[in-house]
C-alpha cells in the first residue's frame, strides 16, 4: 500500500497523506502541494478545472511513483491529483515522499513533479476574469 496513485474530485486531504506516510523507521517526509493560482501570464484567473484520461493517467502516476523509489533512496512516493473544478489557492496535486534522510526525499519529490508535468494525460483549463477561458499550454506526451 505504499504506492497508491489517486485521482480525486474533492479536496486533497494532505493531513491524511502525511499521517499515512509516516513510518517509525523513516525520518523525513516531504509533501509538495501544487495550488491553483489567481494569475497566469499577466491575466487574472477566477477558476481552474482539470480533466484526465483517467486509466492512463493513473498508470502514468504509478510509473512515476515506482521510478522515484527506484532512482532515489526513498521508501515511498505517493501522488494524488484532483480533477474537475479546483477553487483558487486549493491543492490540485499532492506528492508525498518518505525516506530515511531528507536529501533523497527532496530530490524524489522534485523528480516526481517534473515527471508529472511531462508524462501524465491531465489537462488544466483556466477561466479568466476578463472573460474567456483557455487550456494551459502544455507538453506533448512522449516528447
Amino acid at each position: 500500500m505504499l504506492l497508491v496513485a489517486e485521482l480525486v474530485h474533492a479536496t486533497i486531504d494532505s493531513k491524511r497523506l502525511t499521517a499515512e506516510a509516516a513510518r517509525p523507521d523513516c525520518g523525513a517526509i516531504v509533501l509538495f502541494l501544487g495550488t491553483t493560482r489567481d494569475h497566469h501570464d499577466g491575466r487574472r484567473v477566477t477558476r481552474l478545472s482539470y480533466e484526465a484520461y483517467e486509466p492512463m493517467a493513473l498508470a502514468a502516476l504509478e510509473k512515476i511513483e515506482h521510478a522515484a523509489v527506484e532512482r532515489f533512496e526513498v521508501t515511498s512516493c505517493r501522488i494524488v491529483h484532483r480533477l474537475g473544478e479546483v477553487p483558487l489557492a486549493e491543492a490540485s496535486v499532492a506528492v508525498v515522499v518518505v525516506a530515511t534522510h531528507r536529501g533523497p526525499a527532496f530530490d524524489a519529490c522534485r523528480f516526481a513533479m517534473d515527471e508529472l508535468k511531462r508524462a501524465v494525460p491531465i489537462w488544466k483549463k483556466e477561466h479568466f476574469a476578463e472573460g474567456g477561458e483557455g487550456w494551459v499550454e502544455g507538453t506533448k506526451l512522449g516528447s
Partner: protein
Amino acid sequence: MTIIVLFFAQAREYAGMSSAVLELPEPSRVSDALAALGHAHPSLERLWPHLAIALDGQLVSPDTLIHAGAELALLPPVSGG
C-alpha cells in the same frame, strides 16, 4: 470493424464530443483513423501536429495497426500539476 475514440481537452472541444464509435475498414492504421476523424471534424486538423495518440492506453505512432474494439485517445499537450 469499429473502435472507440476518446477526445480530451481541446480535441473534445473541437470535435464537440468526448467519445464516439468509429467505423474503419480492416486493416487500418492509426493514421487511417486520424484521416477519418479529420474528415468528420475538420477543426481537429490544426491539432494534429500537437497531439499524442494512445491505443488502449499506450502511446503509439501513426503507422500502428488498429484491432477491432480498440480504444483510441486523442491527447493534446498535457498540463497537469
